[in-house]
Each structure stands twice: as C-alpha cells, then as structure tokens.
C-alpha cells in the first residue's frame, strides 16, 4: 500500500514539474524569446513525458521494464539521458548557427570594404571634373 502511495506521489510530482517546464517553454515561444523551430524537440519530449506519466498502461509498461524497486531511479536516468540528447541537439543547432553567423560577418566585412572602395572611386570621379 505504502509503495503505491509513494508511486502516486512520484507521478504527481513529476507531472507537476513537466507541466511547469512545458508552460515555461511555451511561454518562451509565445514571448519570442525562443524560436518555435528550435523548441520543437523540447516540446515533443515534454509532451511525451507527460503522456507517459498520465497513461496507466504506459506507466505499468515502464515499471515492468525498469523493475518495481528501481522505477524512480530508472525513470530519472531515462529522463537524464533524454535531456542529454536534447542538449546535444541544441548544441548542434548552436554550432551550425555560429558557423553561419561567422560567414555572414566575414562576407559583410568584405562587402563593406568593396563599398568603401567604390565610394572612394566615386568621390574622386566627381571631384575630377570639378577641378577641371
């Protein structure tokens, strides 16, 4: 009986935490602080965890998979591994964007220099007829 109460408490606590994180993620997207495109994998993960916690069938399957005595530790470990994958996915996106930003920055510098040179040529062309 005690075990069941403990499990229920754990599920309720986890559901509350996931809901909190999910609302926070959605709020970040809503206020334009996080791109929906970048947040999609996190939102999918949070919803998947929520479904897992709410569904009795899935929860039972998880318990039988992890073992009754180590369910909480096992669930925590699975969650941690999943978060590591999500973080790696985010790092991949950051790396890709950093490379793109570097290239844009470099091209901008090269274009600026060409523009400066053209403006200089233009100025000298304009001033030449005046001096003649």
């Amino acid at each position, binding site marked *: 009986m005690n075990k069941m109460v403990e499990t229920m408490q754990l599920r309720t606590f986890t559901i509350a935490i996931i809901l909190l994180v999910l609302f926070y993620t959605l709020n970040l997207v809503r206020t334009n602080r996080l791109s929906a495109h970048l947040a999609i994998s996190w939102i999918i993960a949070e919803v998947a965890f929520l479904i897992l916690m709410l569904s009795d069938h899935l929860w039972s399957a998880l318990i039988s998979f992890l073992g009754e005595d180590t369910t909480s530790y096992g669930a925590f470990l699975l969650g941690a591994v999943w978060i590591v994958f999500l973080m790696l996915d985010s790092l991949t996106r950051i790396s890709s964007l950093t490379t793109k*930003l*570097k290239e844009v*920055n*470099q091209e*901008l*510098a*090269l274009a*600026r*220099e060409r523009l*400066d*040179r053209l403006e200089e040529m233009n100025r000298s062309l304009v001033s030449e007829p005046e001096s003649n």
Partner: protein
Amino acid sequence: MKVLLIIPAHNEAENLPALISGIRTREHSYDAVVIDDASSDKTAYVAARHGVPVLRLAANLGIGGAVQTGFKYAAFKGYDIAVQFDGDGQHDPACIETIVGPVRRGEADCVIGSRYMRGRSDTDYETPLLRRIGMYFSSGMLFLATGVHVTDTTSGFRALSRPAFEFFARAYPVDHPEAEALLMLHQKKFHILEVPVKMRGRVRGESLFTFTKALLYPLRVIIGFIGLLLNKQV
C-alpha cells in the same frame, strides 16, 4: 608574385602606426589589409588613415575568424602569397622576406617564422612559462598526430602559398587556431617549413592570451585535434 600581409587587429590603434610604417620603409613593398575584429578603439580609423584597406567585422570572431576573413580577401583579390602578421607589433617587418622567400621559390606551402629552432632560437624573446608549456604540448601533439616536428606551433607569423590559403579560406579553426591549422595542412599534404625569425614583445596593450585561456589551451588542442582526425570532410 603578389604578396598580401593579413593583419588581424583587436584594439590595436596604438600599435598600428609604427607597424604600418615598418612595413612601408622596407626595400620590399607589400600590400596589406587590416582585419578589425570589432575593436572598441579607433583601430579601423587609424589603419584607413594610413592608407591600408580595412575589413571591419561587425562582431568579434577571434583570431581564427579574423585571419580567415583575410584569406578570403586574398583569394578574391588574386594574391599569390598571404602572410599572417600580428597587429600587436610582435612580428618584425624585416623578417617578412625570410618567410616569404621559400614560398616564392616553391619550396613550401606554409612557412612558419619560428622563435625556437634548435641552434638558431631567438634568445632575446622571452616567452611566458604557461605559453611555453602550452607550446611544447601542442608541438608534442602535432608530432604524435603527424610525425612532423614543428618547434613553434603557436607562431602566428606565417606565409602561405595560394593553394594553402585558398584551402583556409574554406575551412579554418576558430580559437587558438595555429596548431590545428598545421594539422589541417598536413592532412591535405601541403608542405610545411620552419625558418628562424626574431620577434619582439607586445609593444602596447594587453594580450588576449590570459591565464585562464592558457590553462584551457591543452584541452582545446586535444579536442581540436580529435575533431580534425575524426572529420573526413576537412
């Protein structure tokens, strides 16, 4: 052969006038370009006032990103040789021809100006202990990875042939890129050569190679090398 000096500069407004006049008073006249790495001082203004083209980076990219911008410029402008030349006044303009010569003669694709060549080391140059340890470490790593012995892996005073700098215009490491760049050149079968040069201490301003960066340098080298050895696309 057209030679371009690539001068990466971050807050080097005080050092640039002497450096530019040093380049111009020598018997060989070199074209130069200053890469202003988002300086907060008047680096770009000072360089432009001295008649040197300036590539102004809108955001700070660090030495690797700045130098790569110079390689892109050199490739676009049709230069035959590109020389990396620090904006802090450490490199002696009198030694430019020493490192350009072997590239000009087709003896190497990358010539490194070294302070530590055995029997011909620059005894006047004082290297801080942490930097020296970092350099021995990266030299050892490079030797393990390639079998090539380079005495001054951290030297930023280098001359590159057109094929070599065109390669770097496409791919170049970002942070503390010197040792990784040598590994990349070796992987692409470019010929690397070292020649002894004299270097001076930084004239004015502060080095960006801080204590923390020096401590992390070996780790960066290891990770950078592993990345390059695993990456088949470079």
